[in-house]
């Protein structure tokens, strides 16, 4: 019996006029991720069908479990729209299940099929009862519900729903620029942003020699983990050393972090413009550190008119950690390499900075030209999660 994976869309079905666009994006995303794996995806307005070779099952499940836009999916058995065939198969399928009570639910979108849904359910129920011992029908609280979907080309029978990760397909929103430091919060922020369909670029501020190449590698690894949810992520590496040193030389130490963040936002805005992105995304969480108090945020945010999305801003640290574990970034995030936010941390950073004071300090050195120079020296690399497969034949 041929098995296919039947994918039910999540919130996509509420999109009316845009539904096609959402479905198409999900379709393209799955296709891109499954490139090189022999499988076929067909789609219609309410379902996607994925045919695959049994040996690839684990790989395909891994892809499905990392693709936004999938609410539920089923392993469904595919057969011809033939009454006798269906009767025979349904017994085989139900024999694989462990249950005492069951019900059959038929959906007949193919109105050419001669038997109406309710009647067909009753008929199939009778067949199952007759062929499997010790079971009964319970239409209210069955142990197993067996779905029979009669569609134009084929009939599909399936039982257990499996949960996808929901959200919107990545790419249904335009690009957003994620500030990825290497800590616990920013990868989670990136994940949540992608969950709402945002196409993600990551930006890493690097202060070599104060930060090491290991720190950069760590960020690349984080990107790889995030790339599992899309097909690739562009990572922009910003050479921040000169500007950061200038800040510490020219500004009051308590204001250094405030001003550093303002500089970062300025650079983020420039990068967003250049890359046709519409938002800045980061892992700020209200009150977590001095630069993340509301007063700090206001002073820092003042340099940009771009929306700054802070997906984890209202989560507790422990909630963020839970998510980080779920998306497998936690263990990487806690590797002990310095990033540019942890070096030069003043003893007493200002908690309630004053905008005018910050502006005045910034006037004391020519940061604009430094920003121009560093923008010219940004390195962009494309990070995919396929590295495992590339090395597969070697390892």
């Amino acid at each position, binding site marked *: 019996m041929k098995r296919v994976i039947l994918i039910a869309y999540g919130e996509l079905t509420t999109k009316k006029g845009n539904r096609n666009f959402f479905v198409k994006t999900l379709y393209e995303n799955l296709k891109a991720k499954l490139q090189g794996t022999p499988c076929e995806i067909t789609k219609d307005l309410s379902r996607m069908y994925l045919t695959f070779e049994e040996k690839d099952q684990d790989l395909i499940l891994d892809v499905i479990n990392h693709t936004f836009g999938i609410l539920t999916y089923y392993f469904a058995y595919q057969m011809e729209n033939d009454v006798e065939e269906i009767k025979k198969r349904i017994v085989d399928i139900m024999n694989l299940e462990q249950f005492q009570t069951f019900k059959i639910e038929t959906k007949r979108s193919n109105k050419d099929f001669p038997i109406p849904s309710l009647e067909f359910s009753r008929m199939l129920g009778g067949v199952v009862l007759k062929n499997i011992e010790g079971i009964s029908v319970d239409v209210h609280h069955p142990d197993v519900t067996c779905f029979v979907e009669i569609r134009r080309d084929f009939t599909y029978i399936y039982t257990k729903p499996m949960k996808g990760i929901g959200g919107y397909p990545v790419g249904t929103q335009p690009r957003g620029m994620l500030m990825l430091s290497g800590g616990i919060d920013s990868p989670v922020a990136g994940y949540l942003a992608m969950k709402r369909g945002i196409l993600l670029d990551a930006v890493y501020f690097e202060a070599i020699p104060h930060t090491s*190449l290991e720190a950069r*590698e760590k960020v690349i690894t984080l990107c790889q983990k995030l790339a599992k949810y899309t097909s690739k992520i562009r990572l922009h590496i910003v050479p921040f050393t000169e500007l950061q040193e200038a800040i510490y030389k020219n500004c009051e130490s308590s204001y250094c972090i405030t001003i550093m963040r303002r500089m970062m936002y300025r650079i983020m805005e420039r990068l967003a413009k250049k890359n046709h992105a519409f938002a800045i995304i980061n892992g700020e969480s209200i009150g977590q550190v001095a630069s993340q108090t509301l007063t700090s945020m206001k002073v820092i945010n003042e340099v940009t008119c771009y929306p700054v999305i802070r997906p984890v801003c209202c989560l507790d640290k422990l909630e963020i950690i839970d998510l980080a574990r779920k998306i497998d970034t936690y263990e990487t995030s806690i590797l002990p390499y310095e990033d540019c936010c942890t070096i030069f941390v003043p003893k007493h950073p200002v908690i309630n900075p004053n905008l005018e004071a910050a502006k005045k300090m910034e006037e004391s050195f020519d940061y604009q030209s430094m920003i121009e120079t560093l923008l010219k020296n940004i390195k962009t690399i494309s990070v995919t999660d396929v*590295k*495992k497969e590339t*090395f597969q*034949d*070697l*390892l």
Partner: protein
Amino acid sequence: MIRMIYLDYSATTPVRDEVLDTFVKVTKQYIGNPNSLHKLGMDARMLMNEATRQIAQLLQVREDEIIYTSSSSESNNLAILGTVLKYPNRGKHIVTTRLEHSSILETVRFLEKYGYVIDYVNVLEDGRIDIDDFCRLLSKETILVTIGSVNSEVGVIQDIKRIAEIVKDYPTTFLHVDGTQAVGKIPVNLDGIDLFTFGAHKLHGLPGIAALVKKHNVEIEPLIHGGKSQSRYRSGTPTLALIASFAKALRLELADLSKKQIEVLKLNRFLTQSLQQIDGVVINSNNHCLPSIINVSVPSIKPETMLHALEAHDVYISTKTACSGEGDLSDPLVAMGKSQEIANSSLRISLSSETTLEEVKQFLKIFEQCVRELKIK
């Protein structure tokens, strides 16, 4: 008819085609130094990291706990000397056994010159260490316990879990386990072990690459200085092709391990039963030993004579181990209380999961013939 019969897998194993493929491909395709900052270096480093991740996963340790070395001997040296160099002010007492590989025994003997006191745990008749004696020897002064998981000559398997539990009560004592003969043969569990040695060429991998697992909460001093390479505990340009081939060899060796164990056990039973029936052959291995190692003595025949007689039939086994030191007596057999006659006439037959029953039968025929002929002379 089988041409050559190789039953010396505990000395080294022939490399698998897939492993050699990896070595060749990586050598040709990844020309960058993993420590270079350009793209070629980055690609090489990514491959190295992935290989390390794979090895770490297979052994259930952390990636940063793997240190690559050139051989198990080097790993053993690094473990022992690295520990004592790091903690010169701790106790100067080391506990080991007479069953160890020469790269351990020679290294601790070398340390005697520097004031270290070495104690050798008593060994029971079956080859396992005397746990009571072991407990008696341990003290606050003990800086290191080094005990092999599986002895290479007789194949005795030590209860490492129990040993680790005992050492746990001594917070300043490190436990080093030489797992060279164990990995790929029996399931290994590194819980409670501070330092762990294993190498590729016993796993159908290439010689020239081995590793020391150093738990992240353990510090050692490097023996080869020169800055950070793959690990700051061992300098030298990482041998990427060997590292990748090592990861592959380990993966392939550990696949279906329990199935392979059963296959080897079957061969072992057949071989042991058949050898027992040959007049003048004494079996030294017992059921505490690794099924792939069968140590026998033929007291009336010099082991070298036996080895060369078999060699004339294109059959290859070992006398003692390929790399044990000078002297005719087998240290492990002496430690197990065997007579001198037995200890200086021991032979090691070692199997692999690739050994066939046909090979074993053929071997027995030739072995019996050699014993018969040589005894008459």
